[in-house]
């Protein structure tokens, strides 16, 4: 990806300015704008970091430090869908290991990897705070609750 292809539309730039104006120091909008950038460009490459740094008059090093600190920014291309299985305590007690094992087999990938067809990235994550419906996982924006291997299969079928 070359730097010139990383460019928000006029409308998106207006949204960046609106977000920056919400904070006493426009830097406060850095996380929200990085979310926007990830939505627009798919993932946060070094070029994206540099572009966002320019929009905030920050050093690319500062933006890089921020991007690498948080788990929700992807620093390499991700699949069309992200499946994040919770493996914290309550999900562990409800069989998260079985769910994760089942997903690995079904998708044929290890945790952290994307299927060769680019369909799904599989992650294991810490408590998503829906422990009352464990085991659970997040599929893109959605929480999928009370999982069983059969339910996981049905969910996977719905992902194109």
């Amino acid at each position, binding site marked *: 990806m070359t730097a010139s292809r990383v460019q928000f539309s006029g409308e998106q730039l207006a949204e960046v300015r609106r977000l920056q104006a919400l904070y006493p120091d426009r*830097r*406060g909008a850095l996380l929200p704008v990085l979310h926007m950038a990830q939505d627009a460009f798919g993932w946060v490459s070094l070029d994206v970091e540099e572009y966002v740094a320019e929009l905030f008059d920050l050093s690319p090093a500062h933006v890089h430090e921020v991007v690498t600190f*948080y*788990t929700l920014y992807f620093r390499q291309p991700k699949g069309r869908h992200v499946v994040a299985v919770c*493996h914290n305590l*309550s999900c562990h007690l409800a069989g998260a290991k079985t769910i994760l094992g089942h997903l690995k087999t079904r998708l044929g990938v290890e945790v952290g990897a994307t299927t060769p067809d680019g369909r799904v990235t599989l992650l294991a994550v810490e408590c998503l*705070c829906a*422990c*009352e419906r464990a085991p659970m996982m*997040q599929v893109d924006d959605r929480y999928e609750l009370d999982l069983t291997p059969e339910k996981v299969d049905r969910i996977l079928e719905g992902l194109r």
Partner: protein
Amino acid sequence: MTGERILMRNFDRPDSHTLAAYRATGGYAAWAKAQGMEPAAITEEVKASNLRGLGGAGFPTGTKWSFIPKGHTGPVYLVINADEGEPGTFKDRYLLERDPHALLEGMLIAARAIRAATGFVYIRGEYVEPWRRFDAAVREAYDAGYLGKGFDVVVHRGAGAYICGEETGLISSLEGKKGWPKVKPPFPAIKGAFGMPTIVNNVETISHVPHIIDRGGAWFAALGTRTQGGTRMFSVSGRVARPGVYEASVAITLRQLIDDLAGGVTGNGRLKGVVPGGSSAPILRADEIDVTMDVDGLRNAGTMAGSAGVVVMDETVSIPEALLVVARFYAHESCGQCTPCRESTGWIYKMVRRIVEGRGRKEDLDTILDVARRGAGTTICAFYDGAVGPYLSYIEKFRDEFEALIAK
């Protein structure tokens, strides 16, 4: 024992998140009342209520508000901690999704008390649906004229980092930095977000405020114990028949919560241990659950009320395996700023893993206990102490299980 549902009174209504439903059940009446009160009188009412912070630390809310410097003339900020991430806790998710206007009304009242013109609501990045619900409520509140007349609300989304739940880490993150906690003092009430006096409160704490103003501090205080007023929302999960969120007086006992509200222990039906306040709270054994769930009751029992996330384990659960899961979490989430925290969480995770995998050595348990104790109380934030609680309590209370794995 459970008494009246206050925070959860509308949860069964399918439209509970809308302004219409909120107003139809008396919503925003407390705000009308508060507008006729002096800011100091609002703070006094909250002090009288014995409301204590429900995010984790249990600090008295009215007292915290009174720390805003008196002569300060610049901006003051109200920051709502909706970064819910403490393992075993899910109450704020319910409040954001099912009663977002209660939080907004509480924010209006709190902002008047501390003279804040701007409120930030920091919602964890993974909470997409709760964020949409809350954001829609904010737009309704602007359209209805509650917001935008002297008080504005900015909804801010996090990006995945447990440590941003710690109030100074949250502030760093809100300022567009990595979420590194800051040394206290100065406390946020003196120098917080963007260098200005800032009050950070949890979602549930602030959602109580309209009811306190509406019905009086004394009423709220009487619902709880001598040193903590009110009800709170308990998140119950693990091996129980009816996992879920339950509102009850803070004077309820852990046994009542597990047996009467959550339907009792499942698995083999016999309790082994319970984490009473989120994963950072030291574990209790089956014979230690006749304690009240208020801040001081649990402190006297050697654990903490924390976020009121109750995780139940029956006799079939392996405690070493549970500790492995917990230790992995702390190793993963340490922000890396303090040496004892960064190094110990990593090493202890590796040692617990070695024990669980049958490669443990005789001296490992004492080494873990020693390493854990040494760093306690020496770090910038309470994250590390929150890790030490489980390390020590799991091993001290269930040492035979660990030893059995090592002897194999």
